[in-house]
């Protein structure tokens, strides 16, 4: 089991150019980050491509990890998720059609995930649970699948500005709940 402290040490070693640390980090986190890329992209070949890009970014930017104030795993997840979303949007910008209905399986936690609930997870899930279900669904869709405002608006059948207002209000409510 790799602890957050272990992961941080690996990142710091990578910042000093330690390639073994890089491979250890890959072994410890590759499957998790690949799962995230797959979740967003729904395409294995693209997810593999993005995962490669993600680890190279992590390698190159390991020395800047401390600046952002994120915990090590959150930093890695953020790099992976954002890279996957960028790729997803590039694909959509090329006009490849996206079936929104097909993109929306269930957003509920899997049983395994429920069993490994972290305190952060319990917190966010609890606070999302306090929102109306469709509003919580919109936040989850944005985070887990990288849906844009426009896609969320289409999905929930509301005008773009309404969706924006909706989501911002939901985020404010969420912030109050998370800060308690």
């Amino acid at each position, binding site marked *: 089991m790799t602890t957050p402290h272990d992961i941080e040490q690996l990142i710091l070693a990578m910042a000093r*150019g330690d390639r073994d640390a890089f491979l250890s980090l890959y072994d410890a986190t590759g499957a998790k980050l*690949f799962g995230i890329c797959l979740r967003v992209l729904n395409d294995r070949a693209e997810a593999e491509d993005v995962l490669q890009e993600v680890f190279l970014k992590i390698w*190159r*930017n390991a*020395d800047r990890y401390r600046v*952002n104030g994120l915990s090590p795993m959150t930093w890695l997840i953020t790099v992976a998720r954002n890279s996957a979303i960028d790729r997803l949007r590039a694909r959509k910008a090329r006009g490849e059609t996206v079936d929104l209905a097909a993109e929306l399986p269930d957003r509920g936690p899997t049983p395994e995930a429920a069993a490994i609930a972290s305190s952060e997870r319990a917190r966010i899930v609890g606070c999302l649970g306090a929102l109306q279900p469709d509003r919580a669904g919109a936040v989850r869709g944005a985070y887990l699948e990288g849906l844009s405002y426009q896609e969320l608006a289409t999905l929930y059948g509301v005008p773009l500005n309404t969706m924006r207002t909706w989501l911002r209000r939901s985020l404010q409510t969420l912030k109050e709940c998370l800060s308690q």
Partner: protein
Amino acid sequence: MTSDPTPEKDDDALAAEYALHLLAPAARAAFDDRLAVDGALRAKLAFWSEHMAGLDAETTPVAPPNALRDTLAKAVKADTVPEQGAKAPSRFSFGGFLAGVGLALALGLVAVTQLPEVRLPGAAPAPEVIAQPAPPPAPPPVILPEPAPFAPDYFAELAAPEGALVIAVAYSDASGEFRLQRSVGQAPEGRVLQLWLIADASPDPVSLGVLPDTPDAVLSVPDALRPDMPGATLAISEEPVGGSQGTGPSGAVLAAAALTDA
């Protein structure tokens, strides 16, 4: 954006939208610029990122293919880091490591091995021979005026992130040639593209030559390098005209890919 009650709340909402990747590119870039100088904003973003990452617990890990680990190991092997921690980039940018938009940031290589430049058919006169210090000694590449019949044994697709550059590569053992076809993208203005081989057995990237401006190119591989193809990785970098002046790639590596059996 004007109806938010206070700047404080506005920033909270903005940080949340940034964390969710909901901002339009211009707004995201503006937020990046603020992040670079605004610690309070970084703290707001960290708040959202940490909490939202709780949702990732719901995502099942999936083992990536084994080949990817090898490709990464080689790419990092090529990415020699100079001593005294000179890895720090000159410009701080959150976009670089959070959004990860900069190709140049994806992987920058530092000089390792000096090699002769390959001249392509019709590109320039005879190849110059440059003494090569590193083992294994490779003779200068040869001009191929007429490509021989070509039966590829290996393929690779060099694709930059976001599909900004795509080059299909095929290699034939029989002719010892790489055939390249650039279908998307080109060298940045005033720069050239250079192809590198990272052999399984050797730690240093070896130049296979500078690509011409034309979409198609043929590169002949020196005899000494031909046995290195199985398991090798190719990389493409952008370099000053004439190719890297150093002993390895000097510009950003735009893409890398393992050679796979045809």
